[in-house]
C-alpha cells in the first residue's frame, strides 16, 4: 500500500491532550512540518509558555525550556544569545503573550531577537477555564466577562500582528488561520517563511494563528471552527503585515 499521509518526523507518535476541535494540534503539525522541511529539528530549541501549549515537549522531538507565564520571549532571548547557532522559537497563547507577557514580546521584538514566535490567538484563556483574554472579542461572554466584553470597561481586543509589525526589529509579522484547507495551506507557507527568516538570521519573525477553543467557547468542534471564519477573521484580518524581504 502506498503511504500518502505521514506524521512529521519532528512530532512524537503520541495522542495529544487537546480537546476535540482545538486547533493546537494542527498548529503543532504545521510547525513540525516547517522544521522537517528545513531539516532543522536537529538544531531547534523550543520555549514553551504557560497555558495549553505548555506540553510542547510532550509532542515535539526537540529540547524544550519551559518559561514562566509570558516570559517565553525573554527566555528565548537567553537561549538564542547563549546558543546563537540554534533555531529558537516560542509558542505562546494570547493570555501569555498579549497580557502578562506584553513587555517581553515587545522588547524582544524591538531588539530584533533572531527567534520565531508562534502566537496562538483563541480569544480566551484556555487552560484556566475560559476567562477573558486581551484578544476576547467585543461582546464575547467568558467566565470573567459574563455580560460580554464591554469595550468601555476592558478596551478592544489587541491586534498583535499589526502592533508588532510597526517595530523595526521585526522582520516578519503575519496572521493566519487553520479553519479551512485553503487557510491551512497559507498558514503552512507563512510558518515556513517565519522559520526561514530565522535560518537566514533576519530579525524576529512573528506568526499569529487564529485558533478555535470549542470547550471554552461552549461550542462543538464544527461550530467553533465556523466562528473562526465568521467572527474572528473579520476582526483579525489574515495577511502578512511585515515582510522585510520577499520570500
Amino acid at each position: 500500500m502506498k503511504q500518502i499521509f505521514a506524521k512529521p518526523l519532528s512530532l512524537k507518535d503520541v495522542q495529544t491532550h487537546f480537546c476535540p476541535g482545538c486547533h493546537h494540534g494542527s498548529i503543532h503539525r504545521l510547525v513540525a512540518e516547517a522544521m522537517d522541511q528545513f531539516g532543522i529539528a536537529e538544531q531547534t530549541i523550543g520555549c514553551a509558555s504557560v497555558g495549553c501549549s505548555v506540553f510542547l515537549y510532550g509532542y515535539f522531538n526537540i529540547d524544550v525550556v519551559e518559561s514562566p507565564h509570558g516570559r517565553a520571549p525573554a527566555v528565548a532571548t537567553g537561549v538564542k544569545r547563549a546558543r546563537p547557532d540554534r533555531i529558537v522559537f516560542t509558542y505562546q497563547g494570547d493570555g501569555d503573550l498579549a497580557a502578562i507577557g506584553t513587555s517581553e514580546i515587545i522588547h524582544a521584538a524591538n531588539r530584533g531577537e533572531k527567534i520565531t514566535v508562534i502566537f496562538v490567538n483563541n480569544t480566551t484563556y484556555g487552560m484556566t477555564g475560559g476567562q477573558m483574554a486581551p484578544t476576547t472579542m467585543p461582546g464575547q461572554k467568558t467566565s470573567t466577562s459574563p455580560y460580554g466584553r464591554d469595550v468601555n470597561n476592558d478596551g478592544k481586543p489587541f491586534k498583535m500582528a499589526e502592533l508588532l509589525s510597526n517595530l523595526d526589529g521585526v522582520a516578519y509579522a503575519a496572521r493566519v488561520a487553520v479553519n479551512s484547507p485553503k487557510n491551512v495551506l497559507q498558514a503552512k507557507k507563512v510558518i515556513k517563511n517565519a522559520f526561514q527568516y530565522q535560518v537566514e538570521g533576519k530579525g524576529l519573525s512573528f506568526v499569529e494563528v487564529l485558533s478555535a477553543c470549542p470547550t471554552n467557547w461552549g461550542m462543538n468542534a464544527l461550530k467553533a471552527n465556523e466562528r473562526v471564519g465568521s467572527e474572528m477573521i473579520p476582526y483579525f484580518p489574515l495577511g502578512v503585515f511585515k515582510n522585510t524581504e520577499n520570500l
Partner: protein
Amino acid sequence: MSTPPRKFVKGNEAVAMAAIEAGVQCYFGYPITPQSDIPEYLARELPRKGGIFIQAESEIASVNMVLGAAACGVRAMTSSSGPGISLKQEGISYMAGSELPGVIVDIMRSGPGLGGIDASQADYHQATKGGGHGGYRIIVLAPGSVQEMYDLTMLAFDLSDQYRMPAMVLADSVLGQMKESIVPHPRPQVELPAKEWAVRGTGGAHQNVVKSLYLGDGEMEKFHWKMHARYQELAEKESRWEEYQTADAELMVTAFGATARIVRTAVEMARAEGIKVGLMRPITLFPFPKQAYAGLSVRCKRWLAVELSTGQMVDDVRLSVARDVEVDFYGRPPGAGSLPTPEELFEQIKKRS
C-alpha cells in the same frame, strides 16, 4: 617586593571581575542604585571577552533571560537591589523548580517599597527562606569584604553548578560601594558535574527538557524530597563561617556582611579593655552554619546578634544554638544615618559584659 598583584576596586567591581574570571558567558540586568557598577563594568568588559551583555526591559525579563541561558548550560548571571530582586523572585522560583544554576547578586538597599539607597540587611528572610513561591531554597553567600565580594562570587558559580540551584551573593551598599585592595585570584580548578541536562537543540532520540511543571501522581512530592536531601547535603558539605576571638569568649556577637566588619572593630575595642568577647560571622546564610553555632554555644551561653534590620538572622541563630542559650538582639533598621558605628556596638557589648 614579591607581593601578589593587588587591585584597588569597589565591591561591585570585584563582583563583576570575579564573574568574568569565573567564565560568565551571559549577563542580563537592569539599572538600580546601589549596584549599577556591576552592569556598567560588564557592559564594558564582557563583550571584549566574547560574552553577552543585555540591559533588559525589566528585572523580570532579565532573570528569565538568565533562565534561558542557564538552560543551555552556560554560566549566566544577573544583579540588582531590593525592588528589583522582588521582581526577580518569579524567575528565581522557576529556576529553582527547574534545577537550574545561575548567579543572582543582591546589593541590598533599604526598604520596603522604594525605601532608600542606604545599606540594609533586611532582605535576609527573602534571600534565605526562598523569596518566591513554592517552597525552595537557594544558596546564599554573604561577603564581608571586597576580597570576599570577589571570592564568593566565584564560589557562587561553582556551588550553583555543583548543586544545580541558583546561588545568590547577598551584600549591601556599604560592601558594594566601598573600595579595598584585593588579589584577583584566577578561577580555581574545581571538578564539576557535566551539564548533561542542558538543552542542546540537537534533536534525536534523547530529549532534554528544562521544566518545573510536575503533574504526575507523586512527581512533585518526589521533587521536593530530592531537593530537601540536596539542601541537607549542602549544609553538611558547604557551610562556611568565620570565628574571631571565640576561644575564650564569654559573650559571642554574631553578625554577617558589613555589619560583621563593624562588630569586629567593636570586639577589638572591647578586648583592649579586657572584655572576653568573640565574633561568629556566618559566610553561608543558606546553608546556615547551624552545627558551628551549636558547637560554639555548648560553652558560650551569652549571645548577641547584630543586624541592619529589626531582626531576621537572629531567628536562625536562636534555632541553631543550644537550648539554654539566651540570644539578645541589637539592630538598626536600614535607612540614611542608621549605620551603626564600632563605638556604638562597643557600648552594646560593654552593657552585656
